C-alpha cells in the first residue's frame, strides 16, 4: 500500500514538474509581458497544488498538513495579486503588443492623468 502511495505521489510531483516546464517554455516562446504572465501563473497555483498534495500523501501527518494548507492559501491569495500588478504596469509601460488586442477596455482609463488613479 505504501509503495502504491509512493508511486502516486511521485506521479503527482512529475505532473507538477511538467507544469513548471510548460511555464518555462511559455516564458521563452511568448512575445510580450501579458502572454508570458499567462504562462507563468500555471505552476504558481496548479503545479504547486499537485506537489503539495503529493507531499501530504507522502508525509501522512496532520502537522505537515497544518503547514501545507497555509502555503496553498497564501499562494492562492498572492498569485493573482502580483499578476495583476505586473500586468497593469505592463499595459502602462507599453511592453504589450497592441496590434494583438481584440478589445482595449483600459483605453478610457489611459486618458485620465496618472495621479487620478487610472
Amino acid at each position, binding site marked *: 500500500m505504501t509503495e502504491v502511495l509512493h508511486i502516486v505521489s*511521485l506521479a503527482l510531483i512529475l505532473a507538477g514538474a511538467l507544469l513548471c516546464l510548460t511555464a*518555462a517554455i511559455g516564458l521563452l516562446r511568448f512575445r510580450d509581458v501579458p502572454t508570458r504572465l499567462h504562462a507563468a501563473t500555471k505552476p504558481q497555483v496548479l*503545479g504547486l497544488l499537485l506537489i503539495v498534495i503529493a507531499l501530504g500523501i507522502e508525509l501522512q501527518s496532520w502537522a505537515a498538513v497544518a503547514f501545507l494548507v497555509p502555503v496553498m492559501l497564501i499562494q492562492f491569495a498572492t498569485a493573482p495579486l502580483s499578476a495583476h500588478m505586473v500586468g497593469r504596469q505592463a499595459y502602462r509601460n507599453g511592453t504589450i503588443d497592441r496590434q494583438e488586442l481584440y478589445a482595449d477596455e483600459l483605453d478610457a482609463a489611459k486618458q485620465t492623468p496618472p495621479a487620478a488613479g487610472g
Partner: protein
Amino acid sequence: MTTVLIVVISAVFGISALLTVWRIIVGPSILDRAVASDVLLTLLICVLGAEMAINHHTRTLPVLLIVAAVGVFGSISIARFVARRDGAEQ
C-alpha cells in the same frame, strides 16, 4: 521504477529552471525579468516540496511557508516602482 521517476522529475525541474534563467538574462524589459524571477521562485517552492516528498522528511516545511508568504513582494514592488517607460522596445 521510482529511481527512473526521480531522475525524470529532476531533469524536468532542471530544464525548466535553466529556461527561466535564460528568460531572466535575455529580458528584454524589466517586467519580463520580474515575471521570470517569480516563476523561478515558484519553481524553488516546488523543488523544496518535491525533495521533501521524495526524501520523506519535514525539515524544510517552514522554508516553504516563508518563501510562499514573502515571495509575492518581489514582483509587486518591481511592478510598483518600475518606470513608466523603460525604453524596452520603443
